[in-house]
């Protein structure tokens, strides 16, 4: 799944998800800026990662300006705080006019409201939950086919 055009991508939150994306996208040749509150978070970046690292709070507009958010093609908000992700993605979309903005939101109940605001949200809780449910249903079917032992 290679994206042909080289993009300028900002990733907010360099935890497990943020660093995973940053490492992959940097290897694919995209320009990256990773932002995190804690400097140690950048330890999760691989040696192949060739992007920038900014230590700071992305809900501060000055930090996003530093990251050249006005030039970005894509921003991914992946901090562990839903509200930080929701605020950063709205600022990215409405103020910096970044063409594509994606946010991780853990709480499924908050997700729907932000979809109505036009923020593209991904909820790991409901995504994984639905996979579990689907897998549950599938396994019930196979048991019926095999019959009781």
């Amino acid at each position, binding site marked *: 799944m290679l994206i042909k055009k080289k993009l300028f991508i900002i990733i907010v939150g360099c935890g497990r998800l943020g660093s995973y994306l940053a490492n992959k996208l940097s290897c694919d040749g995209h320009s990256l800026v990773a932002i995190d509150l804690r400097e140690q978070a950048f330890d999760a970046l691989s040696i192949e990662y060739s992007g920038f690292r900014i230590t700071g709070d992305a*809900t501060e*507009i000055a930090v996003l300006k530093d990251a050249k958010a006005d030039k970005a093609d894509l921003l991914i908000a992946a901090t562990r705080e839903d*509200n930080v992700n929701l*605020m950063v993605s*709205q*600022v990215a979309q409405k*103020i910096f006019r970044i063409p594509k903005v994606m946010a991780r939101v853990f709480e499924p109940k*908050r997700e729907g409201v932000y979809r*109505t*605001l036009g923020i593209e949200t991904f909820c790991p809780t409901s995504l994984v939950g639905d996979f579990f449910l689907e897998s549950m249903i599938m396994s019930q079917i196979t048991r019926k086919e095999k019959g009781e032992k």
Partner: protein
Amino acid sequence: MKVLVVGGGKLAYFLVRAFIGKGAHVTIVNRDIDECKILAKKLKATIVHGDGSDPQILEEAGTSDIDTVFAITPNDEDNLVICQLADIQFRVKRRLALVNDPDNEEIFQTLGVQAISTTRILSYLIEEKAGFDSIASIIPVGEGKIIVSQIVLSDTSPVVGKALCDLHLPDNSLIASIMRENTPIVPRGATVLNASDQIIVMTLPENHGLVIKILTGEKI
């Protein structure tokens, strides 16, 4: 009036005490259980324990019947989400968020949330009370986009004895009136400034410093 306050600390306590004093029915949402217990003992308010940016907690707090929501937690992002949920999901008529970062005041307006920056208000008050002797008062108008200042000209002011048309004030600034010995004067270009004149001047935040410097000789 039914008011919902999300937050804690002394600010929430004194604010709610004032609202109750004015006859409002207040509900407080606070995520700290110990603080909830203290607030419940001290205030005649409904206390709900939980995260105020969680739609379910807002539901439990009866947010649909609330007239005004105040989001005053220490985190700007939480206050934004609380006000947006109150608006979109619960149709609360009035919502107000507190912001710490003064830059967020404008950002929140862009995102459709009315916000007040305590930092900005404090800095105005400090400038007014302790800042510059010759500036008697500063009033921000239109969310701070226009500043109206009252300045008393001292003997040493570089503009004393000059006509207004010779001052070379920057664009978008205006000397609106002059009080001279308790008599108001609506100034014209030929009006000459005297020491002890009280000047009402309108500026924008970006040229405020320059105008003050021209009029008083002081750097702001």
